[in-house]
């Protein structure tokens, strides 16, 4: 009986292995033909190719953008291999400092000791922060019968700090006079894992919340209360399955899940729905640090018309000098491509906004000096 069972299991196992092998072959073939078939001739001419192999790691918020860029770059440049691992911004910075990767993706710029360590790694050059992708962070909600919810920054800060607990609070009613808001408890949803989205969102809350937001910004959620969920997709599905909830994630997640998003009041007094163009406008008045290290200081009080104030910026961290020559050439070539107009518009469908012109010009100028 035991033997019989063993044989049967073995047979099933063998069958499964066979199936999987066939399936694997199938997908391989597909992706190969797909890759060469969709090779964009337009971008190919824009890329000054370099050869070799580099590895980058870091932010998961820019993973989709980098994947898209790597695909385009590698299909244009045979002989170049770029690996990007979305290990998280902090890990990416540590691996960059530890010389394990040639460039890092990070949702916040190098600061203090990190900058010193990173400069040491790049000796005789320095480490530079290059803003590379911008994305609107949407506030998605799930209240039956309520569309077009409008909220200002301070109200959002009160909601996420737990100071406003009901949807029919006077502060929310005042901003949404025509909506029929339920007298239900607000369930706020935030990221349970460390995340650049949290970092950028809490920066916004800290800037506009004043006395209502007393918590530090950072990649860990610091406010008490609310529910955590793992990853942007976890936040999205939790909001979707929890009535009277509100959470934050990159815009593409809200769109894919069909969730309504909050129109956020900007400093010009308009309520603006999240969009890639709005995020670009919001960032356009950000202060860019002097020198080569293009650290951005966000200007949440911008009175630009149509600016959407909640966005995230993710950087590439690279060395001005000090990489082995073959790696340096490929990093420079790859980053030159990612900062180009073609690359910036290519990621529009993925929910990223193009860099504002003022920022993009400076980024390209710095990349040109890399060696």
């Amino acid at each position, binding site marked *: 009986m035991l033997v019989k*069972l063993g044989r049967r299991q073995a047979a099933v196992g063998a069958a499964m292995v066979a199936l999987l092998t066939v399936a694997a072959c199938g997908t391989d073939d597909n992706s190969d033909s797909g890759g060469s078939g969709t090779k964009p001739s337009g971008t190919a001419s824009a890329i000054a190719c370099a050869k070799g192999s580099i590895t980058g790691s870091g932010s998961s918020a820019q993973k989709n953008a980098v994947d898209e860029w790597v695909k385009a770059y590698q299909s244009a440049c045979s002989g170049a291999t770029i690996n990007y691992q979305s290990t*998280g911004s*902090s890990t990416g910075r540590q691996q960059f400092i530890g010389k394990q990767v040639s460039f890092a993706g990070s949702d916040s710029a190098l600061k203090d000791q990190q900058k010193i360590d990173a400069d040491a790694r790049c000796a005789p050059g320095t480490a530079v922060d290059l803003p590379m992708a911008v994305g609107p962070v949407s506030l998605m909600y799930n209240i039956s019968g309520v569309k077009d919810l409008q909220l200002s920054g301070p109200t959002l800060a009160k909601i996420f700090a737990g100071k406003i607990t009901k949807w029919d609070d006077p502060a929310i009613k005042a901003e949404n006079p025509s909506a029929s808001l339920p007298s239900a*408890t607000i369930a706020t949803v935030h990221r*349970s894992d460390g995340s650049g989205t949290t970092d950028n969102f809490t920066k916004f809350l800290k800037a506009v919340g004043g006395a209502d937001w007393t918590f530090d910004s950072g990649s860990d959620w610091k406010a008490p209360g609310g529910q955590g969920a793992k990853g942007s997709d976890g936040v999205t599905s939790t909001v979707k*399955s*929890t009535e009277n909830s509100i959470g934050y994630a990159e815009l593409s997640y809200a769109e894919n899940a069909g969730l309504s998003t909050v129109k956020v009041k900007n400093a010009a007094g308009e309520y603006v729905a999240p969009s890639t163009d709005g995020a670009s406008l919001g960032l356009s008045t950000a202060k860019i640090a002097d020198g080569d290290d293009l650290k951005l200081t966000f200007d949440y009080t911008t009175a630009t018309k149509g600016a959407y104030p909640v966005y995230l910026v993710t950087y590439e961290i690279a060395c001005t000098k000090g990489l082995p020559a073959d790696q340096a050439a490929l990093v420079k070539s790859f980053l030159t491509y990612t900062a180009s107009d073609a690359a910036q518009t290519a990621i529009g469908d993925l929910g990223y906004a193009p860099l504002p012109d003022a920022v993009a010009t400076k980024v390209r100028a710095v990349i040109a000096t890399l060696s």
Partner: protein
Amino acid sequence: MTTEPDSSADDAGPRGTASATDPTPAQLVTTSKAKIGAADLIFKNLTRTAGIGLLVLIAAIALFLVLRATDALSANTGNFFGTQEWFPNQTPPKFGVAATLFGTIVTAAIAMIIAVPVAVGIALFITVYAPRQLASVLGYVVDLLAAVPSVVYGLWGLIVLAPHMKGTQLWLNDVLGWIPLFSADAVGRSFLVAGVVLAIMILPIVAALSREVFLQVPNAHREAALALGATRWEMIRTAVLPYGRPGVISASMLGLGRAMGETIAVALVLPASFKISVHWLEPAGNTIAANVANGWGEANEIGRGALIASGLVLFIVTMVVNMIARAIVARRRDFSGSSA
């Protein structure tokens, strides 16, 4: 057997008189040293290396955890065992395992309460009640449950189970709400949901091992019980369960180890709030393993040390639980194994 006639004659005496105390592996080695000495020696050393290697591995894991944890622990401004918050990445760092340790124990306990009775029931059905054909199919299906990756259980728990358990949780709150454990302001991704997901995950381990244990019950025991006029249930109670109890306990402890160490499924299901919540239907709570999964990616040097320190706590708790289980099994062995 190819032993020489002389030695087999010599052996006959001692074996006859001391059969119960001496299973005589040593004698076999000495009597046939010339023929299988080399192979025996190699095998003995191989097994010894494996055994020692395991001990070295465990010691190395413990040492690694301690070394990496000490820096973080000395920088901690909170009480590592008393603080419920977890902010190791800020300056100054402040963190403690109180909330996550509590969550680990609660979810594992809920999982055990649900899974063990069901698993023993499955094992009994397969070994005693089910027709042969059905039993083999059922056993195979139960084993298959163990092959589902934990991330799949986690996603299923988050997307399917949590919304669908809302009704059950509200009903529990209505009926048993006067007990603090079942009172809730809002129900959602609670300890109970995480416990149910974990229960399903440990079910195959406990069921499969219990089944094997129940299959070992000597037929003589069962037939003796039946011959004395016992019904099937009485036979199970008097013959199968007492014999299988130590095995079921070890199986449960293996399941408990998995439940306490489960990472990604719990990370997906629980809302990762760092507070000790005695309201098990409310969306609150976190476990040590889930916290490691959530916090590792963006942790800095201190943050990682803190997570490793929490891993050390889990390591020790698991070890203590296993030791307790061993003690229980050892205490029961005399009773149930005597007639084996």
